């Protein structure tokens, strides 16, 4: 082999000196070739079985599954009644009041939808407040549905009965800060319907650590927040074996400005913190890690690097689970995501918005080439306001269908495997992410690094560097900082299909939700509520007590989300972020 390498090395040098140099003479403004050509010299230690292996086998570089069933069933899906059989979870949704959201899901079911709710909650809920808190005015029912008490969950789930009852559907909850109480509410809802907890399928986001770095929907300081995480992990593990424990999100961190390497390293450090939490309770890693999942990681327009990133992320996660935590069950080692490579919402532009569809198609192609489904995410009208139009969603979905059925992109797994370029990029990304992860280890792990403000500052700095590059043209965005001359056509779009959420209902959502909360508070046993809250405080003060059991009792008594969180605020304090300057 080394003979072969020597030959290539010599040949490459000759190519540089003759062919490349000669070509450069024709372009005097270029000092060196603006593109790169990879050779076996860029992957000198490449070993197929160690670095790639087979799809669905360690280290899962190619894919976490041996094949994508959608490659074969695309034709079937296209013929199915709903016509949308290429996706599993229902779309992220939640509008105004529980009644409004219920009606939306009802319509979905009438149209043949069979998926459970994928609940977006308003910020009031995400930050642990109630709709009737006067400081929340203007926010109730915005960006998601308002949930104050179990009553709201009962209303949302009204359409899910019979063959769509809680033991037949899977739910998603985008909730982090107060996730423990939402999980308790879902358990209470099931128990009240007589459904055993071990039949429930759901994925709570329950990834509090990234909230301190991105998104900002934190409530308590990191340490007590990790205790709440621990309680959910242990409870879900014991009583809800079909439920995921967490759905971690590197993509949120990327959207907040992190570089590719920071996205990977911080996400892995967060995963390590959650895994360690489980191990510290005395559990075997294989007992819970199979139910750790990821929302998504990555997100940028850099096509080849984003494909390499997904390969590196899968391999790194598998290695961490196996080598660091001694996992034996291959399922523990799977980096499960709902999508792989994609462009990320921050790549979209308000200017000439249809270009976002072009961008999203590229992301979807990268998705199929990086072991995932084609996700033309987000719909092209992402930057035009809050909420996607039906047209934009239709086009996004059609991208997946076209790439699957017409372009047949799912028919080969990891087509770049063995490519000198792709393997070199994958190795480089993983190597750099390990270096950053080890730096975090030395700081005492991600929780300590968040407490110090290190992670937040690093991400802000990266965001600022990126913005400066946009300003000076090092980063080019078509229609934004280049190709903006007067002869360009500012292509606009029209969105005519009405949004499913009636604007009149939207306008009165806050008022209606406050009225309905008032009604709940009037009709519940308030003496009992007071007693339960006193007990909750006592339990919260005892670090070793698992709070989920008592929270289910609280949920059944219609204790509000803010009442629970106020007890925790009292006991745990509130998170106070470090200064950015």
């Amino acid at each position, binding site marked *: 082999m080394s003979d072969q390498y020597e030959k290539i090395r010599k040949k490459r040098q000759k190519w540089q000196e003759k062919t490349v140099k000669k070509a450069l003479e024709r372009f005097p403004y270029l000092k060196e070739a603006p593109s790169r050509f990879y050779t076996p010299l860029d992957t000198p230690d490449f070993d197929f079985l160690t670095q790639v292996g087979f799809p669905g086998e360690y280290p899962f570089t190619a894919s976490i599954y041996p094949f994508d069933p959608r490659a074969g069933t695309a034709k079937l899906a296209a013929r199915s009644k709903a016509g949308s059989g290429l996706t599993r979870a229902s779309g992220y949704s939640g509008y105004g009041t529980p009644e409004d959201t219920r009606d939306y899901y009802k319509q979905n079911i009438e149209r043949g939808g069979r998926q459970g709710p994928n609940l977006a909650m308003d*910020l*009031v809920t*995400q*930050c642990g*407040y109630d709709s009737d808190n006067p*400081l*929340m*005015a*203007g*926010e109730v029912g*915005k*960006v998601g549905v308002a949930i104050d008490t179990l009553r709201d969950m009962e209303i949302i789930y009204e359409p899910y009965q019979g063959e769509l009852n809680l033991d037949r559907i899977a739910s998603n909850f985008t909730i982090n800060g107060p996730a423990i109480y939402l999980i308790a509410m879902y358990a209470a809802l099931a128990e009240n319907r007589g459904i055993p907890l071990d039949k429930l399928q759901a994925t709570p986001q329950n990834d509090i650590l990234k*909230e301190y770095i991105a*998104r*900002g*929907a*934190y409530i308590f300081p990191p340490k007590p927040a990790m205790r709440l995480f621990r309680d959910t992990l242990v409870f879900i593990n014991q009583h809800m074996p079909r439920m995921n424990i967490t759905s971690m999100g590197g993509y949120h961190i990327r*959207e*907040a*400005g992190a570089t590719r390497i920071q996205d990977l390293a911080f996400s892995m450090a967060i995963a390590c913190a959650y895994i360690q939490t489980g191990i510290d309770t005395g559990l075997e890693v294989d007992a819970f890690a199979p139910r750790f999942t990821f929302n998504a990681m990555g997100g940028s327009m850099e096509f080849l690097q984003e494909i390499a990133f997904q390969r590196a992320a899968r391999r790194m996660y598998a290695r961490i689970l196996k080598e660091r935590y001694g996992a034996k069950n291959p399922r523990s080692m799977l980096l499960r995501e709902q999508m792989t490579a994609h462009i990320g919402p*921050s790549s979209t*532009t*308000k*200017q000439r918005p249809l270009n976002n569809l072009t961008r999203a198609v590229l992301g979807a192609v990268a998705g199929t080439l990086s072991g995932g489904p084609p996700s033309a995410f987000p719909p092209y009208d992402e*930057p*035009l*306001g*809050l909420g996607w139009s039906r047209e934009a969603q239709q086009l996004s979905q059609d991208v997946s269908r076209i790439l699957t059925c017409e372009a047949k992109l799912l028919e080969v797994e990891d087509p770049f495997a063995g490519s000198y370029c792709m393997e070199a990029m994958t190795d480089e990304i993983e190597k750099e992410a390990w270096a950053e992860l080890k730096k975090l280890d030395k700081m005492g792990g991600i929780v300590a690094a968040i407490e110090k403000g290190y992670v937040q500052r690093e991400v*802000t700095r990266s*965001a*600022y560097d990126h*913005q400066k590059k*946009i*300003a000076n043209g090092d980063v080019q965005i078509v229609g*934004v*900082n280049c190709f903006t001359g007067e002869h360009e056509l500012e292509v606009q779009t029209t969105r005519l299909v009405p949004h499913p959420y009636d604007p009149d209902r939207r306008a009165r959502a806050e008022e209606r939700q406050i009225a309905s909360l008032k009604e709940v508070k009037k009709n519940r046993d308030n003496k009992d509520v007071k007693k339960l809250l006193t007990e909750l405080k006592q339990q919260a003060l005892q670090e070793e007590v698992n709070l989920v059991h008592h929270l289910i009792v609280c949920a059944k008594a219609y204790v509000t989300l803010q009442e629970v969180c106020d007890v925790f605020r009292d006991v745990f304090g509130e998170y106070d*972020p470090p*200064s*950015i*300057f």
Partner: protein
Amino acid sequence: MTEKKIRVLVAKPGLDGHDRGAKVIAYSLRDAGFEVIYSGLRQTTDSIIRAAIQEDVDVVGLSILSGAHLTLTRRVAEGLKAQGADEVVLLVGGVIPDEDIPTLREIGVKEIFTSGTSVNQVVESIKKHVHHNSPKEAGQ
């Protein structure tokens, strides 16, 4: 005589935690030579008004990506007026649908910056509006 530095409060009212834009603007305005105060997340409109008055700022920039911009901006504008600070230049940035822009202007917002705005545009706009308010400094 040195020109008094323009003082800007970059604030995140309400619960919206998307602070990439606000932080980048805070850093950028500081680099552009302004005195910048960043409020941090989850500020009530009252605390923003209080900070604006106490810090004697020339500009308040609100960053809102949650759809709550009309309620929150109206409160800040009315609060500043009630405190006699209506000369403070009020700016709003974030995810703002086009149809809400006229309403925000009526409320008293001088400029609305949506996605794709360059930092330079923000800097120039601040200089223009602040100098418009204090004609003595114009042309310095």
